[in-house]
């Protein structure tokens, strides 16, 4: 029974796949709240990569960076959801394709 973690490459592949799933989610959904959730998924993929490289190089700075990313993500979500609630109050919908008035 080997007690080893997998190589760093597998962590990079997992993070790439998760990030791309987040990108696809942003491209195929129209609900603004689900879009914010896909952005959270992308941030989590980056966090996972930061942590795996931090473990690989045995350097704690990477994990501190993940902590700060979480701080910024929490603030971003609060502001984003407040803006979405405001949009819903004005248009009675969270459909982001209604918000193309700058185009006209």
């Amino acid at each position, binding site marked *: 029974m080997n007690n080893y973690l*997998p190589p*760093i490459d597998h962590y990079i592949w997992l993070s790439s796949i998760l990030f791309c799933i987040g990108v696809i989610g942003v491209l195929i959904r129209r609900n603004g709240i*689900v879009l914010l959730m896909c952005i959270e*998924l992308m941030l989590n993929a980056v966090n996972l990569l930061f942590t795996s490289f931090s473990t690989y190089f045995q350097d704690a700075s990477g994990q501190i960076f993940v902590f700060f990313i979480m701080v910024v993500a929490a603030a971003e979500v609060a502001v984003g959801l407040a803006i979405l609630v405001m949009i819903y109050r004005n248009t009675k919908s969270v459909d982001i394709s209604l918000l193309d008035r700058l185009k006209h």
Partner: protein
Amino acid sequence: MLSYIFYILSGLTIITAIMMITARNPVHSVLYLIATFFMVSGQYLLMNAQFLFIVNLIVYAGAIMVLFLFVLMLLNLNKETEPQKSMKTKLAGVITGGLLLITLLGALIKSNTGENLPITDIGLVKNLGRVLFTEFVVPFEISSILFLSAMVGVILVAKRHNVETEVISE
């Protein structure tokens, strides 16, 4: 042994993430995303990053996702009100994301180091706390200002602006 846990967790992470972007009901999307965050927390625990494990559970799966769920229920969104893109746009989105994935994996496929990750104890609360409050103490304090400004901004944006009272007070 640890590698097998990693592969099982990875498979579950990818499955729940795909379920999250394909679920019609936004509430189901939130629940699948919470499951994804639990799997990612498991990866942190596997790397012995105990601080990030518990912070990810409390902050992401606990606070942020409850905020999402709360807003969804406040706005009363469900499957019937969910806006859908046309099939052609969805296909284009999937192809674009797939091309990005192929590009990333194609760039990485040759760089096979084959070195296993070491098992360290730098992710413990004791070690990370020491680094956070010596080397990174200024960013830590600045992040509190960020939180304060975000809080003020949220209240300002989400407050219902009552036009009549403003006119009267002027």
